[in-house]
């Protein structure tokens, strides 16, 4: 809590250098952060290698882990599946009508790859990759971009030697000189242009979400219709006796929870396999049975041993996917709350074939 003269001077200097507002006198709030705490939370890696942890990983190991942990979204060769980010390719595409912005074609710093993989990947299972595995995955991403050979080993020692191809492709925001002078002229108020004609119409593309009546979603209802709606009797009361099946409220709650799953699992009419298998009518079905989906080896083995996705097995799997089935492709960290799992299972039960 001591306020040393040096510290006050340092503060004043920082202020002078930054030109910012005055820093207040300390209040003595908070407590000292412990080294273990800083080590746990300060995992950022900077372009000059600041923050890199000692370790190493090779391309071959990276390829193996990538196939298991990353390929579901990023593709086996880091080419990207559907609209998930491509991590390789796209070299010289930055002036194309559809530029492909990858680690090889766009990213300026390798530190960003290491930092992000280690801190936030895999999607749904962040902070589960070890330091060495992170080096290995980063090495594989370099390899898939043709930037290193297949025997390359990346480590904290050679890390900063790697310069990405688009390293010099960025300039600091220059709007102040390239745009603001142009846009700060006194604007014209009359006879500013000739007659205008419509050249493009959004309706031609037909990509806007719609209300049931075909209008753009969220269109303000006509007041006349709203008034008529007041008088309409509630018809819900006439609903038929509840059929056997999951509780509708639970199903509705499950549909909400399922948004966490919908990234990888499609459901409903015509649902196709995506990153994960389609999940129609799967409750009560044998495991590993969705046609056309490439399951992990452990899942196929469990299926061979007779695993059926009933409420109990689904509950256990959803609580802790990797604990229930080591080696599953499902990168999802799991649903910790029992009520969320019950809701999702009810929702899955409500889905027809």
């Amino acid at each position, binding site marked *: 809590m001591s306020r040393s003269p040096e510290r006050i001077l340092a503060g004043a200097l920082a202020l002078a250098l930054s030109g910012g507002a005055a820093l207040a006198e300390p209040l003595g709030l908070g407590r000292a952060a412990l080294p273990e705490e800083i080590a746990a939370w300060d995992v*950022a890696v900077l372009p000059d290698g600041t923050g890199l942890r000692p370790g190493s990983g090779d391309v071959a190991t990276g390829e193996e882990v990538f196939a298991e942990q990353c390929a579901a979204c990023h593709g086996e060769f880091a080419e990207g599946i559907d609209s998930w980010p491509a991590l390789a390719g796209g070299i010289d595409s930055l002036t194309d009508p559809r530029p492909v912005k990858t680690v090889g074609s766009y990213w300026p710093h390798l530190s960003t790859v290491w930092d992000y993989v280690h801190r936030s990947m895999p999607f749904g299972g962040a902070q589960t990759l070890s330091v060495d595995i992170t080096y290995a995955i980063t090495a594989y991403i370099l390899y898939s971009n043709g930037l290193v050979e297949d025997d390359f080993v990346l480590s904290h020692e050679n890390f900063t030697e790697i310069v990405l191809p688009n390293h010099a492709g*960025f300039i600091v*925001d220059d709007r102040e000189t390239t*745009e603001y002078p142009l846009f700060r002229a006194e604007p014209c108020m009359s006879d*500013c242009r000739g007659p205008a004609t419509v050249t493009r119409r959004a309706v031609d593309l037909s990509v806007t979400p719609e209300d049931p009546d075909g209008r753009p979603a969220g269109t303000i209802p006509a*007041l006349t219709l709203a008034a008529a709606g007041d008088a309409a009797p509630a018809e819900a009361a006439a609903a038929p006796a509840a059929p056997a099946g999951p509780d509708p409220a639970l199903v509705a709650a499950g549909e909400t929870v399922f948004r966490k799953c919908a990234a990888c699992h499609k459901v409903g009419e015509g649902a196709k396999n995506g990153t994960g298998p389609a999940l129609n009518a799967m409750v009560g079905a044998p495991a590993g049975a969705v046609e056309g989906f490439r399951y992990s080896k452990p899942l196929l083995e469990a299926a061979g041993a007779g695993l059926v996705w009933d409420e109990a097995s689904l509950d256990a799997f959803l609580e802790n996917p990797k604990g229930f089935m080591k080696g599953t492709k499902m990168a999802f960290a799991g649903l910790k709350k029992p009520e969320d799992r019950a809701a999702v299972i009810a929702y899955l039960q409500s889905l027809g074939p």
Partner: protein
Amino acid sequence: MTDTPTTTRRGFIRAGIAAGGALAAAAGAARAGTPDPLITEVQDWASGFGDPVDATPYGMPIEFESHVVRRNVEWLTESPVSSINFTPIHALEGTITPQGCAFERHHSGAIELAKSDYRLMVNGLVDRPLVFTFEDLLRFPRHITTAFCECAANGGMEWGGAQLEGCQFTQGMIHNMEYTGVWLRDILAEAGVQTAGKWVYAEGADASSNGRSIPLEKALDDVMVAFFANGEALRKEHGYPVRLVVPGWEGNMWVKWLRRVAIYDQAVESREETSKYTDLMADGTARKWTWVMDAKSVITSPSPQVPIRHGKGPLVISGLAWSGLGRIVRVDVSRDGGASWESARISGDAKPKALTRFHLDIDWDGSEMLLQSRAIDETGYVQPTKDALRAIRGVNNVYHNNAIQTWWVKPDGEVENVEIA
């Protein structure tokens, strides 16, 4: 014009029934043919009881407003936990955005973080690395600031051409709230920033972390560590219990579930400030550190989701304007696609780096309009046309589209999103 009697509700109903919605002929003073039963008959609500107090201990909007919700555009993203939705700005008035319908952008879902589990770490080039609890934050001097938060990608789908029907989708990645919290500079003062420190890196507690580097000068200026918005605790989707407020700068920097601020001598160059939120120019180079959101405006009504249903006569044109560089001083409106302009009224306060409401009251003659608005801020910056931006940036630039929007209002009152030449 303004002293013309306004159309009555009954007039709307009668004319609506008679003309099936297209009621250009019904404009002006409406006259009742038969007495309105809403007036002549005693209605239930005028006789019996309404809801008791406590019917809804924390209320929701009345059912008749159920269309006023955030909406997403599913094809934009692969996963709803790393996605965005849009504020129904077409259906809101004034300037404050209710939290419950303010757009959401998550990179790995909105997490549930209790105040009791909340910790904020300050480390890096500081004299004393510190940890604060939520209660600690409540003991710093408290301040209030109102600011718009706009995603850098707001309007990004419109770079190549008019694409989506409605300002909710074309300009709706924005909200404007009154925040209460503490200045980041006061928190940094506790730790003591060292002279080598030039950048503040802010990270969230969620899986994405969404780390962003902020120059120290901005961090010491007007950046807030906020825990209330619009008078109530931050909603989960807006970063409960603590988020960063970075007035005037792109929304991605407003880190939610703030867990760490660290001082560095350089920018971290995180994923969100290199591979994303950088602006690819026509020549293949990219601008980085494009933090400021330039002046922009949009007419929210009429707009594709708010067609004119009352026919010709008095028409309120309503819209929003904002600038990341300061106050809005003027908004001009054109009805002819930019050939001629008239200045609108600024309604209410024009706060710096906050949404500003403008109104223009016209007597619509029922003819076609190409409606546009352009904002002018206190630096003299005039909101540009899309063509002017394209001439400089090309069309591969996803972010920072602050171009003038054109709405094509047709004689039947329907409105389309268009581009003109």
